[in-house]
């Protein structure tokens, strides 16, 4: 593998590929200067952090000693080739891996200085604080209203019906879906288009007012227009929520995230501000990946 990478690098150098990757940053939708400033300021608080995180599926080790800090109220993108462990890492952050048989997690994951894998921690409460949006839109086969109201209902967030109505309204509003579904909240959520379903899933996730939203390739099943919708939405949500997004689409990572982590074969290869990663990657593997040489 290493040899191949080196070969790739040679190719990059000989084929004048550096120009190619230099063009990548121009794909950034006019990076807002203030947001860049914001993340560069040392005051930016760390929301989630992992130290020496190892994950095993039975005999096989999927993640090796991952140290990663996720800054609060920003978008962190996880990129890397398929099977590199980025989804596994994401699922460690709200303990979704618990449901997989034979999955063992060692090392530390902290949210606001609280250990995620502490025995006394209530995993149900944790998942209310850390929401998740999946690759394939997976609304419940219930009405649109019930989809969004489900979280508040099971966590007892609404005192009465009007309260619940309000939560549903604001969640749909924030997910940018309200205008489209306002008059058909009773219809099944599965009847919406793919992009609408995904936004419904986001509305469902934010209905419980989580602190963090994890997104596992949220746009990979959507067309470009729906993708643009979701990306806009992610950018808006960043004001209130800490977002960690796994993506295969490097342009997407460049467009929506402030921080990017590159995973490869279970290792965290490089982690830096998105601009840094895409303009001057330190590791040759990162460089190879973002220029489309492999992965």
């Amino acid at each position, binding site marked *: 593998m290493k040899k191949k990478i080196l070969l790739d690098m040679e190719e990059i150098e000989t084929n004048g590929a550096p120009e190619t990757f230099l063009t990548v940053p121009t794909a950034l939708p006019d990076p807002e200067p203030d947001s860049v400033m914001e993340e560069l300021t040392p005051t930016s608080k760390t929301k989630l952090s992992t130290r020496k995180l190892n994950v095993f599926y039975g005999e096989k080790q999927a993640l090796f000693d991952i140290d990663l800090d996720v800054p609060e109220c920003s978008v962190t993108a996880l990129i890397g080739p398929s099977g590199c462990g980025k989804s596994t890492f994401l699922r460690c952050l709200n303990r*979704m891996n618990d449901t997989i*048989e034979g999955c063992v997690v060692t090392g530390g994951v902290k949210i606001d200085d609280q250990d995620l894998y502490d025995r006394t921690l209530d995993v*149900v409460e*944790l998942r209310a604080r850390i929401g998740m949006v999946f690759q394939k839109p*997976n609304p*419940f*086969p219930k009405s649109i209203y019930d989809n969004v109201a489900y979280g508040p209902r*099971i966590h007892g967030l609404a005192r009465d019906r009007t309260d619940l109505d309000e939560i549903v309204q604001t969640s749909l509003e924030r997910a940018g879906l309200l205008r489209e579904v306002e008059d058909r909240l009773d219809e*099944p959520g599965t009847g919406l288009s793919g992009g609408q379903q995904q936004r419904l899933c986001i509305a469902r996730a934010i209905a419980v007012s989580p602190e963090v939203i994890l997104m596992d390739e949220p746009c990979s099943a959507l067309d470009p227009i729906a993708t643009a919708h979701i990306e806009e939405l992610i950018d808006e949500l960043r004001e209130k929520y800490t977002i960690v997004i796994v993506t295969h689409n490097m342009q997407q990572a460049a467009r929506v995230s402030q921080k990017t982590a590159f995973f490869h074969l279970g290792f965290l290869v490089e982690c830096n501000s998105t601009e840094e990663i895409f303009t001057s990657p330190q590791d040759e593997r990162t460089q190879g990946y973002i220029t489309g040489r492999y992965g």
Partner: protein
Amino acid sequence: MTDRPPNGAGAIIAAEAAARRRRKRYSAERRFRRYGILSVFLALGALCLLIGSMTAKGWSAFFQTYIVLEIELPRVELAPGGRVDRAALHDANYVTYLRRALRAQVPDVQSRRDLRSLYRLLSGGAGLELQKRILSDTSLIGGKFRFAAVASDDVDQFVKGHITAGGGGKISARQAGWIKLLGAAGMVERRFNVGLFSNGDSREPELAGILGAIMGSLFTMAVTVLLSFPLGVAAAIYLQEFAPGNRWTDLVEVNINNLAAVPSIVFGLLGLAVFLSFFGMPRSAPLVGGIVLALMTLPTIIIAGRAALGAVPPSIREAAIGMGASPMQVVMHHVLPLAFPGILTGAIIGAARALGETAPLLLIGMVAFIVDIPRGISDPATVLPVQIYLWADSPERAFEERTAAATLVLLAFLIIMNLVAVIMRKKFERRW
């Protein structure tokens, strides 16, 4: 890429070979389709043959021959002193009135022997029917009214043309003459056989009905469903959703699959040994029958339930877990509602199998001759398939058609249950 020339002899040969292969593939497909259609028709044909022959044999059992008699009830005898005494009415001999009326129609019968054979045209139960009629309407006393008395099974069979008169048969030539005479007077009628659906079992075929067996079946099924459905669904949910995947669960799974394949009579032996001998439960009771059938149905429901639960897409589970639902909530709010149609189908098919089951019930005494209609789960009872078995064993010709009729009723129940399964599945089915 290719090493053969795009044009020329090689290409033509290759194209011909490809066309040959294509033709072969198409004909293989056509052949396969024909086999499929053939097997479907064979199955349908077998079903039609079964239902057709049962209907042909059993249809006449839905009708019964009655002899309509003009009954006179003298007030002097039944209500002496002008007062109707119900206790006295219970003890009165109603057969006398029937016989009197019958004799009035056939005046030339004199000898005791002939009279006896004349009276034998009527069913032994006709007197009881008359009593019931009078008790329900005492104003009939002191007047004349037309009463349809049940004819005996031999008359019934003779009228239906199933047996012939004379030659030492069940109906003598003289009796045949009387029947003809009564028929000419318009007194022999064929009516819908209400008794078949309102009576319990009887030694007299013309009085035998399936209500007792239907009630027995209903009570048994109630016990079976109430026991096996909740237990089966709970077991399926636990095994599918919660059980850790270790050696023990594997063992349990293998044994459940084994249990589903155990011959049903073994469950009957278990019922006999455990419930009757050890626990001393009542013999012939729907309670025990229901428990035995529940044990038999349980594996079917568990297997169907697990399959239905396993078919729920994992994305729904993940979505619910991601929302912070507890494992119980994931199952109850999302997985179970989606799996319910499948579980229900499995349960109804299991119940339908239990409804048609005979062997285990024979062993726990539900094969007894029971005249009374059971009123509860601990009354002695029999069930439809056992009733069919009992009647099929009886020598009277009239029981033959009743056997077929009871089979038709059982088939109707089974078809209704399967129909309900289909409708329920359609109704609860949700897309995801």
